[in-house]
């Protein structure tokens, strides 16, 4: 069976950028930046980008292409080819399949809300909601958390979920070149087009309330960009910047590694990694930073914007933004464009999350793409059900913690140490520059070997210190929800164990000499 390849260099770059550009670019970044020092936040943000994000981007591209040369597309096989003497290293690679699969399970459901809300915006379904209390009730009704005058069950949410899930599976069924590459190429062009339209609309709002001329989008930009120097003294601001860079670039998922495995050895990874990263930054800092906060500031003023900046992704996306668009001329149209933009950002990310598990089934079990997708779709569809039906019981939050916070940082740390120390920085540097279109400055050897792993270990250490005990003991979880959270945890452990066993079985069958060393 011949190995699938990308159709063009730009195609793989846009696929990686599409994976990176997600809801967080438009909903998470502006709030975090405004909350953590405004313009001053960009200092730790850029430092993290150059010392953490970019090196990890290069690491994932390089090891992915390296592993692809040995017919491995996922972390277990890639790690094993990098450290042949250690027969246990492949088991660490399971995180690179587990993490994205878990995120896919709940991300597709959230993505489906965007389809629903886009439809509701155009049909005026939530037009009667004029304040955040009503809009929150609308969201809760849609999510099936309560029966109210807006919704009397999960029917609409489930229908939009089915549509979204089917779209994802359909794109995946067309393969790397025919599905993912094509969707990401066109999707990102449309996404950037929509984002530019929305930025222009927001920045030309003027002062919607004539009695308050100081409430305008330019002052809103000031809310985001005016530096608060004292914030730089706070460690949490530096951690927030590092965390944001980590999550926004899609590094540590195992997705870039899999995408890069479909490159040939002659393909560049250095320039491609840099291009994908800067495309994501363009979407996040320039476009993402110029919609939510300036629009909120112009319509609801500085005090309310302050609380909006601290809101979670759901409240901002599904409560505040619909209300803000309602206050605009042609609001339903702009709201629909907004939700469509977020949907594209979502779908280009969610398809990428499915790829490691599908590639694992194809490569290691010799399954056809069709068989691998049927297995993946069946398992993830079943696992989506608890997220949908027990949303209010903490299931999603628990999956997010293990799938995102833990898996990403742990996996990124393993990759960085493996690349700089086990594979060896000299060999790694040569591999990174194989077929390269640019020459990376020499000081990055030092950064990749020492600084990036140290930063990752610091983040991991701080998170362990701050969160793990409380998380493990379920502090803050309502007693009624604890059985649901516990069941989710047991289910995730089961999935993790199942993947470990699959790896053991595969290596016993296909690589017995390695397994019996």
């Amino acid at each position, binding site marked *: 069976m011949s190995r699938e390849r990308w159709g*063009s*260099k*730009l195609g793989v*770059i846009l696929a990686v950028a599409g994976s990176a550009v997600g809801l967080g670019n438009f909903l998470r970044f502006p709030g975090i930046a405004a909350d953590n020092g*405004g*313009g*001053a936040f*960009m200092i730790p943000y*850029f430092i993290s980008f150059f010392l953490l994000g970019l090196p990890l981007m290069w690491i994932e591209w390089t090891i992915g292409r390296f592993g692809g040369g040995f017919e491995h597309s996922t972390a277990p096989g890639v790690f094993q080819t990098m450290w042949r003497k250690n027969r246990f290293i492949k088991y660490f690679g399971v995180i690179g399949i587990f993490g994205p699969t878990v995120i896919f399970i709940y991300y597709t459901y959230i993505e489906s809300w965007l389809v629903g809300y886009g439809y509701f915006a155009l049909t005026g379904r939530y037009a009667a909601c004029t304040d955040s209390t009503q809009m929150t009730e609308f969201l809760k009704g849609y999510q099936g958390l309560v029966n109210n005058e807006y919704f009397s069950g999960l029917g609409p949410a489930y229908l939009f979920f089915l549509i979204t899930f089917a779209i994802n599976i359909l794109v995946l069924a067309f393969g790397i070149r025919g599905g993912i590459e094509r969707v990401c190429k066109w999707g990102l062009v449309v996404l950037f087009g929509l984002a530019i339209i929305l930025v222009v609309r927001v920045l030309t709002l003027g002062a919607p309330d004539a009695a308050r001329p100081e409430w305008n989008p*330019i*002052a809103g*930009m*000031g809310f985001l*960009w*005016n*530096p608060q120097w004292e914030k730089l003294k706070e460690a949490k601001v530096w951690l927030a910047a590092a965390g944001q860079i980590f999550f926004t670039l899609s590094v540590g998922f195992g997705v870039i590694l899999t995408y890069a495995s479909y490159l040939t050895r002659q393909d*560049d990874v250095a*320039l*491609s990694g*840099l*291009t994908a990263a*800067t*495309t994501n*930054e*363009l979407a996040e*800092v*320039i476009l993402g930073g110029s919609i939510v906060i300036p629009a909120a500031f112009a319509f609801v003023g500085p005090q309310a914007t302050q609380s909006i900046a601290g809101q979670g992704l759901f409240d901002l996306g599904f409560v505040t933004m619909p209300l803000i668009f309602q206050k605009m001329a042609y609001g339903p149209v702009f709201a629909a464009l907004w939700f469509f933009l977020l949907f594209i950002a979502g779908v280009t990310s969610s398809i990428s999350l499915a790829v490691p598990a599908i590639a694992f089934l194809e490569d290691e079990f010799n399954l056809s793409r069709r068989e691998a997708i049927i297995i993946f779709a069946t398992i993830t569809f079943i696992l989506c059900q608890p997220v949908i039906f027990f949303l209010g019981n903490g299931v999603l939050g628990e999956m997010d913690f293990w799938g995102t916070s833990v898996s990403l940082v742990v996996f990124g740390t393993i990759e960085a140490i493996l690349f700089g120390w086990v594979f060896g920085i000299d060999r790694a540097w040569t591999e990174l520059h194989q077929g390269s*279109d*640019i020459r990376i400055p020499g000081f990055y050897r030092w950064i990749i070997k020492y600084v990036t792993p140290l930063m990752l270990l610091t983040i991991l250490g701080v998170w362990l210190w701050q969160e793990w005990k409380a998380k493990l003991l379920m502090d803050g979880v309502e007693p009624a929800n604890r059985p649901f959270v516990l069941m989710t945890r047991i289910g995730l452990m089961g999935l993790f164990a199942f993947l470990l066993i699959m790896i053991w079985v595969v290596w016993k069958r296909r690589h017995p000499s390695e397994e019996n060393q």
Partner: protein
Amino acid sequence: MTTAGWIFMLISWGVILGLFVYCMVRTLSSGKRNDK
């Protein structure tokens, strides 16, 4: 928006746009080179 705010915004945008344009030009030109 204060002067410092403008400076931070313009520098940040400049760095990102500069890198983006550089990368895209290099990527597209190397693509053409490979096609030949």
